């Protein structure tokens, strides 16, 4: 399912997931991708997670919010952004699947639920996927771009929709919510022993909260399960593309390769690999650059020649490592974004990156 240009990707897909490790310019790339689509007249929204403050300010999304904020600019389409509010999104999902107001109230007040919605690792991924699915289903957007939380495990994002159902599939859950059904009574006594023992270790209140949560959750499992399945189906469907964002640093490239392999194993479409922070290519070879450094050693240009040799060595190293990464994604479109000498925190620079992305093709 490879694409031959980023223009095609931004013009035709309806969901783009930007993934990769932290510190590689993922948020910037996600925002520029949405901007590129807006420039082509599409209605595009970008879901960001913990963007750098100045970038958030530039996009006008300095506060957490659940609704997209429209960004005005010289594009033909519509561009909007939001900064994901994980807890608020989770509360909304509970409201959506609930059977009564009372159920909502009790769940939102339950401490085990608050742990899940606020501190559990994976919740941020889960809610990013939820928000993506919700915006996609609303019909108000032609393209939803989502920035993913920094993580070492690519599958954290892919498995996020299963976060709750995995807890629900736990055999202990069934035991906990059926305290007095005849056949289960004996099994239940065994479970009771485990629960008592657990209470001694982690505290009785903690265990009580967990049991209360599972009991309150009754009647909502099917809704959550169906939703998880629909969302997973959306992630692997044709209109969805994954864009891996990387930088040529050795440590981040190793992680990027790991990500690509995982996407491949999960049969997901890594349509493009964007390598940010590439040094501009030189005409001279690395060897020639070293010669020039030696030739100009005692001339006024000695410093410049050292800069040239350093640049050539670093660029060659970058290319070599990027080449190794690309072996894991032979069909992906590769976009090299040159190193910028300032950080990206204004709409103008984002537009430059959007233009660069749009110019990229095989």
């Amino acid at each position: 399912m490879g694409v031959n240009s980023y223009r095609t990707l931004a013009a035709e897909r309806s969901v783009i997931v930007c993934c990769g490790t932290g510190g590689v310019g993922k948020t910037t790339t996600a925002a520029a991708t949405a901007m590129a689509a807006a420039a082509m007249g599409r209605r595009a929204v970008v879901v960001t997670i913990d963007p750098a403050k100045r970038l958030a300010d530039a996009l006008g999304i300095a506060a957490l919010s659940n609704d997209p904020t429209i960004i005005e600019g010289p594009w033909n389409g519509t561009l909007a952004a939001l900064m994901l509010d994980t807890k608020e999104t989770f509360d909304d999902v509970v409201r959506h699947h609930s059977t009564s107001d009372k159920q909502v109230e009790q769940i939102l007040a339950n401490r085990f639920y608050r742990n899940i919605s606020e501190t559990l690792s994976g919740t941020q991924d889960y809610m990013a996927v939820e928000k993506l699915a919700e915006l996609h289903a609303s019909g108000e957007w032609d393209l939803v771009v989502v920035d993913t939380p920094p993580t070492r495990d690519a599958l954290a994002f892919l498995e996020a929709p299963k976060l709750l159902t995995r807890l629900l599939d736990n055999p202990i859950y069934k035991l906990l919510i059926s305290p007095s059904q005849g056949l289960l009574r004996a099994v239940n006594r065994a479970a009771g022993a485990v629960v008592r023992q657990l209470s001694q270790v982690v505290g009785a209140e903690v265990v009580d909260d967990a049991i209360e949560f599972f009991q309150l959750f009754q009647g909502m499992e099917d809704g959550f399960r169906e939703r998880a399945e629909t969302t997973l189906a959306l992630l692997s469907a044709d209109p969805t593309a994954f864009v891996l964002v990387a930088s040529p640093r050795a440590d981040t490239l190793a992680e990027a390769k790991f990500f690509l392999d995982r996407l491949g194993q999960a049969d997901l479409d890594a349509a493009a690999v964007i390598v940010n922070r590439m040094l501009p290519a030189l005409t001279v070879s690395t060897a020639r650059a070293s010669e020039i450094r030696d030739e100009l050693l005692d001339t006024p240009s000695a410093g410049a020649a050292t800069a040239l040799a350093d640049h050539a060595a670093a660029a060659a190293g970058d290319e070599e490592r990027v080449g190794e990464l690309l072996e894991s994604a032979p069909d992906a479109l590769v976009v090299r974004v040159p190193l910028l000498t300032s950080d990206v925190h204004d709409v103008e620079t984002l537009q430059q990156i959007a233009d660069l992305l749009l110019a990229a093709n095989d």
Partner: protein
Amino acid sequence: MAGKGGVGKTTASATLALAAAQTGRSVLLVEVAGRSATAPMFGTEPQGYEETTVYDEADGGSVQIRSITPDAALVEWLSSHGFARIAKRMAKSGLLEIVATATPGIKDLLVLGRVKALESQSEADLIIVDAPASGHAIQFLQAPAGVKEAARTGVLNRQAVEVLEMLEDPSRCRAILVSIPEETPINELTETAFAVEDEVGLALGPVVINGILPPIDDLTANETELSPAEYHDLAMAAALRRSRLDLQATQLARLQQELPLAQIRLPQLFTTAIGPDELHVLAQAAVTSIEALEEWA
């Protein structure tokens, strides 16, 4: 050691470990993110979770590496607290996930608990922990206080109290933050520094600034004897170096102003990967940089 993703936190951890070993200390380098990322820097293959010696000097200095995973720490801890027979089964049945969800921070606390145990048992003079990336690092370090609050009595509470004692004692434990001389990473470094001190109560050591471009004072680019294409490259490389050096100077000055901590500066290496040779260069730079710091020399 903590820092934003992509700033070379792991490289900095390995560098300081080697630098300490070269001054005669025995160092234990602990990784908490699973696969060992530092083993290749010392020229060995990742060895699973066993303690592995990766550097050993005749006159006493050495580096050992080991990984502690949150799941393993939890299973191990449950095993030694009355769940010996069922800890593994709990992991399989998913009950462990419920325990971890019910007690947020328990895994992080137990990883730190393992570090504390290693501190009292092991023969290492220095333990360096390569912590999770920034946002997670604060969460990681706040875990003991959170668990102490949630579990007010019992073994878990005692564990939390003991770990807090270690974290809050500057003679035993310090946080070293890592960054690179660029705007966003420097902003995040400053934020993390205040959070570590104010919210966690952990004293800060010097900061490590990675990827310092060696300064070149004169970047004049004359055309002499070069072809037009070569001259073009020369001029471009010189101009780019100039603007990057300016950016770096601005950011380092800003950091000094906003966060008055000693700085250990490590040079940018223009190489493909960090192996043993590169690590030695970095460790040497670290030693030189530390010797120049009055307070820490």
